[in-house]
């Protein structure tokens, strides 16, 4: 048990916290047909993240979040500029911006020597879940021992903070976010500024992307953002249900993926652990296929005019 707490608990909680924070925010993207914004953000925050890292030389969260958010805002501006000037559809404009910014981030990592410290391309692609350990744990009592908890890896503690922030934002702006997502014009006409609200969503998504980046890497963040919300969308028609089911799917994805990464090699007799972030995407894909095949709104719309 102590061994589990020391070796796996910090990584497992990081996986679950990352999926939960991203998965809950993903609902707001999915319901406003902005799932690709998550894609764009997770690709384009990379150069900002790297810049923040280069400037401070540490993995401190704040500078990286600031850098990432600056990059996200620049990306959003560029996308709308390109759409207007080049008259390109949104998808093409996004393709231009996020591949360019992702490429910039990769090149920055290589030329800046950031890789010599501990931000390398592998971390961008796969995350570093395996590196999160909690040596201070001595048993169950450590879970409520402030001194031991303070020794948790910083990534895990940051993710807990981000999830708390996300939950607070959702609770405080529950009706406002629903209004702005459903009918932004009406929201603006009664003085509930939808632009301000979508900026809040953009900030929360950027923060969650950066925090989850260490756990799952920059591409699998997209799975955490989109998959839980999509699974819930295939299963329910209620707004509250959408958030509850996506939360359950996010926990299943994080914990299930982490567990499968350990259990599957043991079953198959492989001597090498599987990549946990990758397995989280596999679990999400599995749940998505189930929801699609058997959910009420999966393969074809069930007409429920009673």
């Amino acid at each position, binding site marked *: 048990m102590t061994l589990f707490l020391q070796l796996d608990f910090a990584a497992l909680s990081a996986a679950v916290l990352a999926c939960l924070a991203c998965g809950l925010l993903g609902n707001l993207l999915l319901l406003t047909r902005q799932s690709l914004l998550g894609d764009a953000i997770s690709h384009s925050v990379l150069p900002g993240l790297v810049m923040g890292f280069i400037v401070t030389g540490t993995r401190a969260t704040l500078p990286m979040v600031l850098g990432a958010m600056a990059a996200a805002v620049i990306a959003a501006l560029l996308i709308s500029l390109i759409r207007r000037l080049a008259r390109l559809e949104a998808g093409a404009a996004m393709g231009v911006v996020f591949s360019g910014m*992702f490429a910039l981030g990769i090149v920055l990592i290589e030329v800046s020597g950031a890789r010599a410290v501990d931000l390398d391309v592998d971390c961008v692609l796969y995350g570093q879940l395996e590196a999160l350990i909690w040596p201070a744990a001595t048993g169950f009592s450590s879970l409520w021992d402030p001194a031991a908890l303070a020794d948790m890896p910083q990534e895990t503690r940051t993710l807990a903070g981000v999830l708390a922030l996300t939950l607070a934002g959702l609770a405080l702006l529950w009706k406002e976010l629903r209004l702005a997502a459903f009918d932004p014009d009406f929201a603006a006409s009664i003085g509930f500024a939808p632009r301000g609200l979508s900026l809040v969503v953009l900030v929360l998504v950027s923060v969650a992307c950066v925090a989850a980046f260490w756990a799952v890497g920059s591409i699998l963040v997209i*799975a955490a953002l989109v998959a839980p919300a999509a699974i819930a969308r295939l299963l329910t028609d209620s707004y509250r249900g959408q958030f509850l089911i996506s939360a359950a799917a996010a926990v299943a994805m994080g914990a299930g993926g982490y567990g499968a990464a350990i259990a599957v090699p043991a079953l198959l007799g492989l001597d090498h652990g599987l990549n946990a972030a990758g397995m989280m*995407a596999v679990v999400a894909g599995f749940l998505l296929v189930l929801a*699609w095949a058997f959910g009420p709104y999966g393969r074809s*719309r069930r007409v429920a005019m009673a």
Partner: protein
Amino acid sequence: MEALLQALTFSGGYNARVVALGCAAFGLAAGALGCFVLLRGRALIADAAAHATLPGLCLAFILAATLGWNPRSLPLLMGGAAATAALGVLAVGALARGGRLRDDAAMALVISIGFGTGVALLSVVQSLPVGGQAGLSSFILGQAAGMSAADALLILWLAVAALLAVAVLFRPLAVLCFDADFAASVGLPVRWLDLALLGLMLAVTVAGLRAVGLILVVALMVVPAATARLATERLSVMVPLAGLLGAVSAWMGAGLSAAAPALPTGATIALVACALFLLALLFAPARGVVAFALRQRRLRREAA
């Protein structure tokens, strides 16, 4: 610097020359085809397909390793990549068919889950008792350095074949992208043309994996085409221009990364293409930022 010059002037020996030529040919094909991909609104489908190649690459490697074949054989890996990429495209359609999930969500799902499945399989590959696993991860961000002449020639021929197909299908594809309903009304087989476009897109994607990598291969389809679109309205100009821009980006990017091998080739090529795009965005004659700002000021003055 000398290495860069060598790479750009094709004077680095037979191997380097073939690799530079292969990259440039790929850039040409990707840029030209990219115009149709862009105008038909398929940019993100191409991205989804590209990310979905990773599981196929890994599965092909595992299959070869189990059967005792050479797991580094590029045609085999390309075959596997094309198979799961096609599966990914089908999955986008299937997910969106119910109407509950939209295209954009379906594509984000295929991009991330396809890639994630590949990452998980990649860790399976790492545990196989054969050599050559390290090469597989270079398909993610591309690595032109160390490409064999045989690989480069394969890419070259694939690109040439794709270019020929684009040339042959130029007119019907142009009509399709301009107005699909009109194309159907004059008896063009719209479904088959769309399938052909998809097939060409897959071929070019797979051809680009070795050099540019699966994450950024879409950049070479979308960015040169978008750049060309800023410069011209006419498709007959746009397609060759995009091809040229793609070839120049790929050739310069591959040269840069050959000179500084730490730079992943794909990222370098994409950055060169984006730099060209930014130039066009600022200074394009009719659609550039500068021209737009001038016009907007005039309009405001007239309205006031």
